[in-house]
């Protein structure tokens, strides 16, 4: 009996990674390592949502 590695769900994985990156930026901001303002956060958030939708759409085609 051969155990096969389970493939991760790509949209969920992309969303998780995007939130990890966003959380890291917010952590740096809270430590005053960077200054994250709303004008910078808004494009980042839009890019994250866009990446999730892209991954979701591509995974449905498979």
């Amino acid at each position, binding site marked *: 009996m051969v155990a096969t590695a389970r493939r*991760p769900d790509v949209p969920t*994985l992309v*969303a998780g*990674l995007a939130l*990890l990156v966003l959380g890291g930026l917010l952590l740096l901001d809270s430590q005053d390592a960077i200054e994250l*303002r*709303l004008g910078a*956060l808004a494009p980042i958030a839009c890019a*994250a949502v866009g990446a*999730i939708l892209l991954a979701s759409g591509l995974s449905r085609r498979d």
Partner: protein
Amino acid sequence: MDEQTPPTEPQSPPPDPPPQRRLERSSTDRMLTGVCGGIAKYLGVDATIVRIVAVGLTFLGGAGALLYLAALLLMPEEGQPGPGRLPGLSGGEGGRTQALTALAVIAIVAIAFAGLAIIGAVVGWILFPIAFLVVAGLFAWWIASGERPAGSPTEILKRAGLGIGLLLICLALAAGGAWAAAAGSGAVGAALVIGAGAVLVVAAFARPARWLIMPALSLALAAAFVMATGITLDGGVGQREYRPTTANDVRDKYELGIGELVVDLREAHLPPGDRHIELDLGVGHAVVLVPEDVCVATDADIGVGAVDSFDSENGGIDVEHDDARTAPAGTPRVILKGDLGVGMLDVHHNVRHDSPGDWGDHREYNSFDDGGNDACVGGEARAHGGGGRNG
């Protein structure tokens, strides 16, 4: 002895009783049917006034049209004995029949008005929100799970219910994330976002659950928005008004989480020299009032909102308003450092309390006198991140 009867004086006939006033449609003063002219004649007023009232009542709920119709049916023509005649009705029973018909018509029209009002209320306040909620639920579930709104009505309603439940969960998580980020330190918000991301990564490998993406995004984006705008709940929630009467009563820092923060320095008798004041507001409206002989240098940092400092305005996202003014010798200067998450900062000399919003003990701070920052001698307002005008 003869008794003589006194001569009787001839008696004049009793005067005719005054003619009884009748409410009837005028045959001479009429624009349509003489109803308004007849009412005006009965009341002894100008017919124009009656017509204006009728038109006004027509536009205010339609009562004017209803009353006009009733008067048309019930008021007789001038000089005729009975009530007005409807086309096709005549004879001895005509008056009674027409009165009953008039009442029936009025009742039907009134019921129609009430029916329309009830239908409008049902559609506008019940059916439309339900339909909107169902569509939003179907869309949310489609985005979250990939299942299109197809199949039997029961299946569609089931998916709509799941989507509505998901939206409610997202709403609750967004509120919770925003509150946690605003109430705690910045690290708390960051930890929430990282935790949500970690849950998704684990779920991606363990058990695919795409419906988790929307709740996690709601939580994370709400917390991120609060952190990026600098919203905090320090100082509580509500309305705070400070009116120091001496310079010693003036605090170095005024703060409020959510609400309206008013700092009125007009009776503080500030001495010459600089006075640093820090203003920290999470969400809401901050107002600073200073005497006209005090110079104000404003340095405001606003996540989303606007600043209105005397004759300069600036608003938008990430607003940095630096109005560095200098005061002549012997003139007091307030150096104001404003830090707002979402809201409006007003710095003025006087407020107008005569606006219609003033009532009772509650004062509205929405209207100000546009006096300049005239106690200062130099400096210029510089703004970044928003749009506005500088005076």
